């Protein structure tokens, strides 16, 4: 709840800061023009700022140092940012462990022994 509040506060500060800057030349930048149509387009400046703060908060919650989290989010393309913002928990994290318990473990062991999977040999 508090983090949500802080994010909204951050966005308000961001918008206030950008609104104070006089309008810049109306050019179409490469970042906007070449973003995949399905991903980045829907996020406007406000949406992108919110997504950035949101993803940064998720990284921090998963144990990433806040300074690192800021630099990591800054390096994402608009499309990647939109993807992480929309489906962070569903995305595969390479090398994550399995919730190996009881019967599941046994089934996997059998599958491994008969050569269907390679769970234990790839580590």
């Amino acid at each position, binding site marked *: 709840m508090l983090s949500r509040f802080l994010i909204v506060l951050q966005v308000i500060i961001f918008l206030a800061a950008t609104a104070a800057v006089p309008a810049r030349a109306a050019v179409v930048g490469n970042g906007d023009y070449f973003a995949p149509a399905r991903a980045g387009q829907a996020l406007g400046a406000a949406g992108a700022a919110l997504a950035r703060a949101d993803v940064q908060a998720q990284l921090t919650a998963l144990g990433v140092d806040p300074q690192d989290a800021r630099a*990591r989010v800054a390096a994402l393309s608009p499309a990647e940012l939109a993807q992480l913002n929309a489906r962070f928990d569903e995305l595969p994290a390479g*090398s994550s462990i399995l919730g190996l318990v009881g019967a599941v473990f046994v089934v996997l062991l059998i599958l491994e022994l008969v050569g269907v999977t*390679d769970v234990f040999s790839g580590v």
Partner: protein
Amino acid sequence: MRPAAVFSLLLTLVAGCSLSPARPPAGADASVELAAVPFFPQARYQCGPAALATVLAATSLPVTADALVDAVYLPGREGSLQAELAAAARRHGRVPFPVAASEEALVAELSAGHPVLILQNLGLDSLPRWHYAVVVGYRVDTAQWVLRSGRERRRLEGVRAFRRHWEGGARWGLVVLPPGQLPAVATPRVVAGSLAAAEPLLGAGATLAGWEAALARWPADADLAFGAGNSFRAAELPGEAFIHYQRALAIDPQHAATRNNLADLLLAQGCAGQARAALAPALKAVGADDPLGPVLAATAQQIEVAAGGSCKLPGDLAAE
């Protein structure tokens, strides 16, 4: 489930696998192996940093897997996300390109000397075990792929197992290259998207060579000429930007985004009349619900309020 039922299920699975032919990828008529690609054995759960270090070091960048942990590892997930691997490559001055999703493309990349970082599912669809590895070769004689993977410097994976693992990872892969180089297999759209995504991190000056390489490969692509123009403009080379915008319009006179940016460039050079002329066809043709509409209108507005001054055409600048 009774043991007999489990056994018969397993038999079916095994039989199902053996039915798919061990067909090598098309184009693999000779073995290829990038033996010089370095190896970083992964620490526990940290195949992301290890695989990324492998492809970065292959571009002569002095990095280690340990140094990348803070850039890509997620302690709470005990793994790394694909998007973060691409982002970290940009932070190291390299351009990540998504690889074309076919084994033929992998062979083409290897033949061009590009190792490919891939996502594999070593488990089951219902119980995935995600893993990053780097493809460094393919052996025709044994129909095996050569990988830098986990703690194995030279893991050999049969065509069938490799296909299953890579399809489990939705055939995702990255080719990580120094600016100015392009993947062997790509579309203009993918290349433009990758260069555009790298630009904020690398700086427009660094990606110029990439745009020029892309234009050399696809000389009739208006979008690429437009992207190159923007990159030159951002690198404060207005003369070159002008030439590339004109090139884009020579290919596609209807390219509204180019007309807009060209008009803005001309206006910045004090050439309001030429700017108005460049923008007019786009203003006339734009649809009511086109997202470009407001941008074109804003540019037109700026042209109208511009004070008259001495016009220096960017073409003159390029000649200087």
